[in-house]
């Protein structure tokens, strides 16, 4: 009896799914090259203090990983719709192992997304010490925790039919308001709103690249708060769904 086999095949299954690849990998890389390519020489993007290639690299890593991690959990919706998780509920597989396989798969896809976009970034002239790069990746992985919970919640609340629009809509809003597509600077309502979103801090991880502290207390507080809230939402959605059977 081993849940490692289950997790391994879950990953294999995900990597065989073409749509998953397109949205969490090919789309962000293409967008990166299209947006950052022509602005290669821009050293300080819209007052953010970060060069365009670095800013968009982190921005699109943020987008790609967010989609990957959220979609990882949202795959539960497809399995619920065809009755597969009823079948799994008759096996000794524990819910915890089932969900962690989903999260792990999302993170692995996110890892691939990070590597591919980093390579593209280097191609466009992004340079930083390895230590900073690793620190940046670590912050990104932490900022993805709320999205893992969100994916599980979405997976239990939506059906296959409504999943696409729900997933696309929610991740787009978070990406847009969080500054994936353009730097959020200055002050005002949208800036305050952005500061309260985990996607904003995901993108802010890029500040490490220029030697600054990326998050500070505010960032850690927001990311922790969202992590807890999304974990609660995931647990609630799971219970609501399994009660009905």
């Amino acid at each position, binding site marked *: 009896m081993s849940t490692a086999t289950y997790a391994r095949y879950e990953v294999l299954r995900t990597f065989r799914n073409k749509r998953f690849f397109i949205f969490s990998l090919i789309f962000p890389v293409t967008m990166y090259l299209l947006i950052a390519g022509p602005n290669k020489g821009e050293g300080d993007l819209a007052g953010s203090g970060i060069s365009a290639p670095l800013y968009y690299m982190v921005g699109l890593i943020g987008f790609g990983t967010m989609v990957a991690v959220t979609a990882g959990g949202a795959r539960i919706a497809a399995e619920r719709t065809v009755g597969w998780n*009823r079948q799994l509920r*008759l096996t*000794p597989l524990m819910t915890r192992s089932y969900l962690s396989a989903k999260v792990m798969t999302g993170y692995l896809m996110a890892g691939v997304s990070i590597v591919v976009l980093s390579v593209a970034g280097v191609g466009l002239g992004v340079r930083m010490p390895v230590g900073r790069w690793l620190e940046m990746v670590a912050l990104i992985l932490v900022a993805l925790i709320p999205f893992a919970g969100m994916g599980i919640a979405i997976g239990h609340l939506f059906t296959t039919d409504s999943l696409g629009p729900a997933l696309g809509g929610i991740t787009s809003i978070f990406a847009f308001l969080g500054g994936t597509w353009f730097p959020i600077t200055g002050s005002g309502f949208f800036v305050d709103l952005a500061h309260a979103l985990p996607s904003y801090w995901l993108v802010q991880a890029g500040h490490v690249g220029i030697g600054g502290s990326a998050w500070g207390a505010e960032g850690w507080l927001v990311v922790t708060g969202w992590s807890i809230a999304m974990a609660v939402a995931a647990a609630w959605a799971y219970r609501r769904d399994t009660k009905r059977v």
Partner: protein
Amino acid sequence: MTTTTITQTDAPPEAGITITGLEKTFRGPGGPVRAVRGVDLHITPGETVALLGPNGAGKTTTIDMMLGLLPPDAGGVSLFGMTPQAAVAAGAIGAMLQTGQLIMDLTVREIIVVMGSLYPHPLPVDEVLDLTGMAPLARRRTQKLSGGQSQRLRFALALVANPDLLVLDEPTVAMDVEARRSFWATMRRFTARGTTVVFATHYLEEADEFADRVVLMAHGRIVADGPSTEIKARVGMRTIRATLPEASTAALEALPGVASADRRGAAVVLTSADSDRALRALLRAHPQARDIEITGAGLEEAFLEITGQDDPEDEEAVAA
């Protein structure tokens, strides 16, 4: 007065499957539907039991509660001395549910490997592939299987668990005659190991041929329970109708194989568990009988026969 120990924690776990006072009511659009209305059942290890009944008899609801997928409103289930949840966690259950498709992006072999990996004592994957005839399709992706092949694969997923209790809910429902025959042949080979099997069906022939024991369900209750031959005699009734104005019903009832005789004007209606025998006797005694019609009472009619004198609440229950 000295010590009298009354702790019985060391009592051996009860063997087999015990269902007591099981009840379930669903809220339907036309009011409550009492799908299961007090089911009691004991199954000893190694038995093959058919739950036979028409649609809406409560078979699937009973199975879902037996597996712990649905909480009962009243009553309880013990599987080998455990709750359904504990038995599932222990890997003692293999099941093929009525509904449910397979996940995509894995091959036939891979999905069997994954399922097997979740159980403590799985069957070897190759053995399962051979047993279910899936070996030639082992490398095919699940989304490229036909309906019948998917059904066989779902059966393979229940077998790889190598369970103590195998539960099959209408396993042959979408199969043609040939597929059905090979399915039961596989089952026979598998149950030779002593696995306890419970399957739901609405085919009397399947229950008769394959089960040691048939539990007949109608309107959420068990209406008969016994060896398949006994049940077959009760529900396998056929009706012979013939135009025969001159014969007395008493004489007709005395014919071999005839269970009852009725007169409807010029016609007589005979019921029989062995219509071949009854018909031969009828023609020998009354060669002038004409317009002969034989109708096999469907399960549905047979159930009505058995449960005909039941309480008036029955109508609401069938609505499911």
